[in-house]
Each structure stands twice: as structure tokens, then as C-alpha cells.
């Protein structure tokens, strides 16, 4: 399922945050939204996800304005994987995953057997079946992130949105989660993440959208976006971009290190 953002602008009161943002993500694509803090990345993310609705322009999900969906219908199209989740009460991993089934239930119903089966499938898929009965609070950040991915999968939504999924993770878990995200895109999910890591975006995603001061700075393949010029314009730093392994990876080295 594709998602298309057309001329999206948003203001908090009279403070404009986003200006005329347009981009498109196709089915099976993994898009990274890259940009420094405070440029409207999160706002854009929330607009696309439907958590903010006071924007001008359109977010088209498979050609239909997402604002025309009810909350329940929207959840059947887009699933949200938050950066972290601190439930106020203790829930087991299985319970958390099961909550992903809610959009398929009427208001007065609780999950049934087939919902539980779906959870077993999703937990197996992301490799956390052994954690099912554990307390969510007690898991590591990486494990929690995988639980939230499993919860999004049982929602049966074709679009997955990850909000800085690697922000709280150690290095190993960052790669684990990114690999999961990329695999899901290969399977046909449309995957969007916000991130602070240009190098990881380069290695794992199909396209990168670079946002600066509420506008699209540039958008394209990782090769087009991860350049010295873009990094300077985006973050205001001078880096040397070094290509490695037949350009399968690029690293950014601050020029003052090698000067």
C-alpha cells in the first residue's frame, strides 16, 4: 500500500513548523526521514500517522485522504511503533502484543482465540516467542522494540511507522531492529522511520527524505542523499563521506578529525 504526502503544511498556533512537504512511499519501500532535532520531523511523523490533523495539504493512503478514515479504519492501514513504551501497569509481553488486535474488535469485545494465534505468529516472526510470559517492564530496550514491532504486525496494517526506533538501543540491538524493518519492507510492508543516523539509513533504507527547517531539503535514494553537501546543509557540519564495499556503505568522517 502506498502513502503519498501532498503539500503538507502545519503550524502550532501562529508558529509554522512544516512548509509544503511532498513525498511518496511505495509498497515494499523503506523510507528514512532524516534531519536534525527541532526541524519538524516528529510533527511530520504525527501528521502522517493521523495523531495531528490540523494540517493543510493531504496525506493519501492508497489514494484516499487519511482524514476521511475513522480511528479504527486508520489503524487498519497504518501501525505505529513508538520509540519506547512505559506502560503504567505491568503487562506480559503477550498482553502487549495482543493489544495490537484491538482495531479488529468492536468496542465491547475482548480478543478471541484467533487473535491469540496471530500473536504467536508475530512473536515467532520477530523471534521473541520465548519472551511471551515475561513482564514487559523487565525486557531490554531492544527486546521491547521487537515486542512493539510484533504488536504492529498483528494489527495487519500494511504501513508501519517507526519513531526513532534505534534511539534507546545499544549498537547490536540497533542493527537487529533495522534488519527487521528492512526484512518487513522486503515482504511488502511499507516502512517509514524517523532517525538520527545517516549511515544506518544509507545501509538499511531504500529512500531517504531529508528535512531541514520544516522543508524537504532533498529526497531520493541513499546514494543521492548521503553526500557531503547534504550533510553540511542538514546538520551544519563538515564531513568527508567515504564510500566502502562497492558503495554498499558510506561513513561520515568529521573533517576536523582528519585535517
Amino acid at each position: 500500500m502506498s502513502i503519498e504526502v501532498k503539500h503538507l503544511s502545519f503550524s502550532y498556533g501562529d508558529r509554522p513548523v512544516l512548509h509544503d512537504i511532498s513525498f511518496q512511499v511505495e509498497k515494499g519501500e523503506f523510507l528514512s526521514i532524516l534531519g536534525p532535532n527541532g526541524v519538524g520531523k516528529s510533527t511530520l511523523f504525527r501528521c502522517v500517522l493521523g495523531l495531528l490533523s490540523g494540517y493543510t495539504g493531504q496525506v493519501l493512503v492508497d489514494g484516499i485522504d487519511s482524514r476521511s478514515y475513522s480511528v479504527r479504519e486508520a489503524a487498519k492501514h497504518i501501525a505505529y511503533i513508538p520509540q519506547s513504551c512505559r506502560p503504567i501497569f505491568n503487562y506480559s509481553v503477550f498482553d502487549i502484543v495482543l493489544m495490537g488486535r484491538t482495531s479488529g474488535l468492536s468496542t465491547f469485545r475482548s480478543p478471541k482465540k484467533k487473535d491469540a494465534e496471530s500473536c504467536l505468529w508475530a512473536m515467532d516472526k520477530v523471534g521473541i516467542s520465548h519472551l511471551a510470559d515475561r513482564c514487559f517492564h523487565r525486557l531490554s530496550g531492544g527486546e521491547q522494540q521487537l515486542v512493539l514491532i510484533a504488536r504492529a504486525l498483528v494489527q495487519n496494517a500494511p504501513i508501519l511507522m517507526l519513531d526513532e526506533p534505534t534511539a534507546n538501543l545499544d549498537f547490536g540491538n540497533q542493527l537487529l531492529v533495522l534488519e527487521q524493518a528492512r526484512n518487513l519492507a522486503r515482504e511488502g510492508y511499507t516502512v517509514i522511520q524517523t532517525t538520527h543516523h545517516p549511515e544506518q539509513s544509507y545501509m538499511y533504507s531504500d529512500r531517504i527524505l531529508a528535512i531541514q527547517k520544516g522543508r524537504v531539503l532533498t529526497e531520493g535514494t541513499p546514494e543521492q542523499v548521503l553526500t557531503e553537501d547534504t550533510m553540511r546543509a542538514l546538520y551544519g557540519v563538515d564531513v568527508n563521506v567515504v564510500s566502502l564495499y562497492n558503495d554498499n556503505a558510506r561513513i561520515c568522517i568529521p573533517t576536523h578529525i582528519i585535517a
Partner: protein
Amino acid sequence: MNEIEKKHRRTVLIMGVALIVCILASFLLGRYPVPFGELLGILGSKLGLPIGKFWTDQMEAAVWNIRLPRVIMSVLVGACLASAGASYQGVFQNPMASPDILGASAGAGFGAALAILLGASSVGITIGAFAASLVTVALVFTVSRHARGDRVLGLVLAGIMVSSLFQSGTSFLKLVADPNNQLPQITYWLMGSLSGAKWSDLGFVLLPVLIGLIPLLLMRWQLNVITMGDDEARAMGVNAPRVRLGIVICSTLVTASAVSVSGMIGWVGLVIPHMMRRLVGSDYRFLMPASMLGGGIFLLIVDNVSRNATTSGIPIGILTAFIGAPFFLWLITGKGDHYEH
């Protein structure tokens, strides 16, 4: 359904059985002794079974007119307060929330005091308490709509302020009340007691109680999702503000019903949900029915103590505080959360 869910379901079933046992035992307790066989005979004949009368009229009056309404009332009030507490804790994502967080109790107290001052009958007092309770919560809602910033926090703060206002109002009414008969009556009502429970009270509150409890029971899965926060709930297809409003209305209705007949009974709504979390975990699929049953059992036992242990009958509100506060201290200083794997 995995093993843990089966275990929790079994626990809820056992609690249901325990409640029935407690109810039967409560009929046998009292200053006027009624043997078990006679008790079953009376209950059976009232249910329409063809049983020849082998009990005395006094036994029938004690069981049917005095103990039964009081027992049902204890169970209902306990179930209402505990389930409202569990619901408020969920929708406000605040483990310290209790049924009176939105001012329902303070309003009921004011309404009852005003009704007593105006010389109302006992039904009049119940109606006054119920109406004032709903008015108070409506006022809290109206005020919170104008609160800047976080809506949920605004609601809770408005609840605290309006509660305080109505408590002052009650204090004023106590000041102007006739110290010979009205003041003791107000004071006694505020302490909370089920000693005057009658069929008429029961008839008055039964409908609002059921209108509140049934949706709370049905919406318990949505309540789980709301505890994740509004954004996540929305992304999972739950319109959190709307569901929260529905749950708050139901919780308010059952709280207002309960306090209007029982007066102020503290601690049940805070302590029982936490006690039940230890038993069946945080999942509201089990926590909600467990809270209802647990609240019923708890208040029934405490009321039995209240009416049998002392000749004068200590008001139940005082006993629940005596039991609830130390228990809560034990709970928070105990071996941490129950669900540590």
C-alpha cells in the same frame, strides 16, 4: 489461551464461589441466630420452591428484611467502588486514582448533608446525595474543559479543587445544622454505614449500578489499550478521549450510586484494585471482574465485622480505613510488584 490466562480465569471463578460462600455465611451471622437449614428453606421458598414452612416469622424477617438487603448492598457497594477505582486508575493512567477523584464522594456528602438539613426522609437523603454527586462531577468536567494544557491532568486537578469546595460546603452545613439531631445524623452519614440498608434503597440504586457496571465489564479490553497512552491507543484503533469519557461516566454513575446509599466508604476503591493486580495481574480482562468480586467480598466481610463484632456497630467507613491504610502500606513496602518474571 495460554497457561497464565487460564490461571487468572480460574482465580476469578474461585473468587465468584468465595463471594457466594461469604453471602451465605453472612446470613447466619447476627444477633438473632438462624440455623443453616432454616436459611436455605427461607431463601428457597422466597425463590418460589414448594417448601413447607419450618422456620419462625422472626427468622424470615431477620433474613429477608434485614440481612438480605444489607448483604446485597454491601456486595454492590464494594463492587462499585472497586471497579470504579480500577477504571479511574486505568483511564487516568494513575495508580493512585480512586473513585472519589472527580469529586463524586464530596458531592454526595454535601447533597446528603443538605437533604438532612432540610429534613428529608432516608430516600430523600439518598436522592440528594446521588444528584449532588452527579452535579459535582459535571461541574468538574465543565471546569476542566477550560483548563489549559494537559486535559487529563486538568480533569484530575479540577476534581481535587471542586471536591475541596464541596467539603467546605459540607463543613458549613454541619456548622449551621441543629447540634441535637441533624449534626449527629450528618456526621454518621459521612462516616459511611450500611446499617440502614433497606429494599427501597436497593431499588433506587440497582438500575444506575447495572447501567454503569455492565459497560465497564464490556469495555475492559479497551481500558487495557488506553493505559498505553492516547497516541498509541489511537494508532491501535481506540479513540481514547471518547472511550475514556464513556468509562468515566459509567464509573461516576456507580460511585454516585454507591456513596448515595452507603455514605463515605474510603479505601476500597484504591486498595482492592491493587490487591487484585497481585492476584490476576494488570490485564483488565481479569482485573475488572476480579475487582468487582473482590470489592464485594471485602466490603461484605468488613460489614459483618461491623455489625457483629461490636454491639454499637462501628461505621464501616471507619473500619475500611483501619484495614485499608495499613494494608496499602504493606502493599507498597512489600516485595515489589507481583508480576516479576
